[in-house]
């Protein structure tokens, strides 16, 4: 499918919730058994038959630690790797779709501690063994993105002198291929199972989605997502839809709302994104259910009274609550376990985007119980092992 650039403007359909299949979530226990095609494989440290293991990195001033923790009891955790880095600048990591490797960008300890210091791209087995340097001059804050077959990672390289950005694919042997090069701000989005690579292009004109298809065809204006910033994008497990947050202003209030874009429109058709909800409240992190049946979002309370809650969204009906409201603050979903039995989330003490307060990562079970993963707020969830 190749789409003309002129035909890919998104039309936001305010007041109407569409893409029912994309957003339908039910919380029936029987449906918590979805399969996540992105985190399916058994890794060396995940035991068959056990509960899924949450894999996460925990920031430290001079080194980050990668842990695996039991979903049903995160206090039972195993240190997988310790990665030394320049003071105060942690790694940006991602787990491969087969769960066997972790790629990360890092400022080595002797590098200048600055966000634009040239970082290194490394890969290692998920158990922390076999570390290998893949590339230099990577951009630290841009986490590498894995191809669906776990054979390559895409990282970003930029040159402040020329203002150019490059998205580069690196094989596990370190061979590099420049996928796209631009003076627009580029950020990798992800690969579809079919091998298409999506990326975001930022410019004063807005946020545009580009794609490089498996045959190498590039469409750098596949879809105009917004005239403003978008963020927190997630490809659906089957690669046919993209969820993301887009800014919307109603009166004096600006909020980020979750939207879903169908990536499989007929050739020449106008791509249309649907708002998951039309309410002018902040929504967060529209992550996909493991089986791709819909998205889960965090949402602030529309009435601004009482505690905001994490909600799952069912179009055409009232929102379904996944969890009881936290004692204070609000929740943001991060990642479902492959068996959909657990949800990693970040719980904020505050009451708004402007004042989110302290936060901690927790794992919520089907019974609604939540267990804090770490006493540190500085936790990045990389994915899951086992539980598929």
């Amino acid at each position: 499918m190749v789409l003309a650039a002129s035909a890919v403007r998104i039309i936001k359909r305010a007041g109407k919730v569409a893409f029912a299949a994309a957003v339908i979530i039910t919380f029936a226990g029987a449906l918590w058994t979805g399969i996540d095609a992105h985190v399916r494989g058994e890794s060396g440290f995940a035991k068959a038959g056990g509960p899924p293991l949450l894999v996460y990195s925990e920031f430290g001033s001079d080194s980050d630690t990668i842990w695996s923790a039991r979903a049903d009891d995160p206090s039972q955790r195993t240190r997988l790797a310790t990665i030394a880095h320049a003071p105060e600048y942690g790694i940006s990591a991602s787990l491969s779709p087969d769960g066997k490797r972790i790629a990360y960008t890092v400022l080595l300890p002797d590098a200048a501690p600055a966000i634009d210091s040239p970082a290194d791209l490394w890969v290692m087995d998920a158990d922390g063994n076999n570390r290998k340097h893949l590339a230099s001059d990577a951009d630290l804050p841009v986490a590498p993105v894995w191809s669906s077959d776990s054979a390559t990672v895409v990282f970003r390289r930029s040159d402040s002198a020329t203002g150019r950005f490059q998205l580069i694919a690196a094989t596990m042997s370190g061979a590099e291929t420049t996928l796209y090069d631009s003076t627009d701000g580029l950020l990798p989005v992800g690969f579809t199972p079919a091998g298409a690579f999506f990326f975001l292009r930022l410019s004063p004109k807005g946020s545009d989605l580009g794609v490089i298809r498996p045959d190498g065809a590039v469409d750098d204006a596949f879809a105009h997502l917004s005239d403003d910033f978008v963020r927190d994008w997630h490809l659906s497990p089957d690669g046919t839809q993209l969820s993301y947050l887009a800014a919307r202003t109603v009166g004096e209030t600006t909020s980020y709302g979750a939207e879903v874009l169908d990536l499989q429109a007929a050739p020449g058709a106008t791509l249309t994104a649907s708002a998951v909800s039309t309410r002018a409240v902040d929504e967060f992190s529209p992550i996909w259910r493991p089986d791709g049946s819909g998205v889960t979002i965090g949402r602030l309370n529309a009435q601004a009274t009482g505690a905001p809650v994490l909600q799952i969204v069912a179009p055409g009906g009232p929102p379904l609550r996944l969890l009881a409201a936290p004692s204070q603050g609000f929740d943001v979903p991060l990642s479902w376990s492959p068996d959909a039995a657990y949800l990693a989330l970040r719980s904020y003490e505050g009451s708004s985007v402007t004042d989110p307060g302290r936060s901690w990562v927790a794992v919520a079970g089907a019974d609604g119980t939540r267990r804090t993963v770490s006493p540190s707020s500085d936790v990045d969830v990389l994915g899951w092992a086992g539980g598929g």
Partner: protein
Amino acid sequence: MKRITLLALVAVIAISASTSGKTQRADACAFAVTPTAYEGPKDRSLDLAAMDLAAFNLIAPGNTNFGLPRLEKGPRQVRVSVEPVVPPILLKSIGWIESSIDQTRNSPFGGIGPALISSDCGHGIMQITSGMTVPLGTGGNVTPEQLLVATHYAYNIARGATMLAGKWNDAPASRPIAGTDTDGDPSIVENWYFAVWSYNGFGGPGANRSNHPLDPIYAPWPRTPYSCGPTTDGFGHDRGKYPYQELVWGCAGHPPVVDGKALWQPFELTLPDLADARWSGPLQLANWLAPYNKMDIPSPSPSHKDPTQRPSASAASAVLGSPKLDVYTSEISLSPSDKKTPASQDIELGNDGTGILVWGAVSSASWLTISPSAGVALGPDVTCSAGTSCVRDGKLTLTVNPAKIPKGGGQATVTISSPQTSEKKVLSVNLNGSTTGNTGVPGVTRN
């Protein structure tokens, strides 16, 4: 539609190859050899006091490099200048973010050690880069200003304050105004939002130094406020996840703790309310175009003023002292043992006055090198940590390169000067005629 075959696109680059111009090696900075500097006590009391002084323009008022320029305020079209005061809390927070308020690298507190120079040529506490990438003096030598920035914490801080004030004054010509509802009053700390942003860089969308609060390069969303406090305080600590100004704001409210004590009283600052169109509107992506004249915002509310009292003039005198250069010898002789082996001689110099003396040394001959060519010497009033060897004198090593000696030997001079006092001492270096004799005179020490 571009059609690009991946294989045809392939630019396989060797792992070690670098296409980036992002970094410069430290040895390409102003100093060929890292100078020495003084590191104050661990509680940063001297540094924090100097920050208060610099904020009130008491370090070097009127000096182009170390004095604050008058600050502009008012509406975009009608700017007026006012007496310069930078909120001290911003200098403290920036200093911690930039260097953990360290003027040296890995030196004991309360002593002399190698100056902190990062690989991008950031110098000292405020990580001054501008004007510090190459020597700017005549003959390839550093200037007095470069000497002071690299070696003296108070001048380094003053330079940082001056630069921050300069960033303030970049508005409205090339930067937005914060505080459209408060007359752009520089006494309101939150009105320094864009100046602090600019102190680190005003990069474009998606850039590492974009520093735009809505840029998706900074994840996750919403961002837990940044903290310079303990890593288990429930706030964020990974600096790579924050726009620069949020680091500074967060550090002000959650100060670093040293030996169980916060370095300053928590000072909660307010960021622009990104859920309110009065702030999110101007900050939308379409407005992010030079000269950024559509990005003006009201003061983030509630706004705050820094309650720090103006220090007395005597406080400045105490920090700066009254240094006096003393070179303990006026003439030495060096005799390389052969034509291949360099001959070296250490020279010591002291501060017969008070405070921190900054010195720089210049050789008149290419065959005579000086290492380091700049540094400090401490007066008796300067804190020297107990438990460490308290070396107050400065030391430099002269080395003769026999391969460069002109036929028949030669004579050179080393000029040692202090940018603070304008004193200048000339040291004669005699090269013994024979290059096969013994290495020169015994070490010169203080009598």
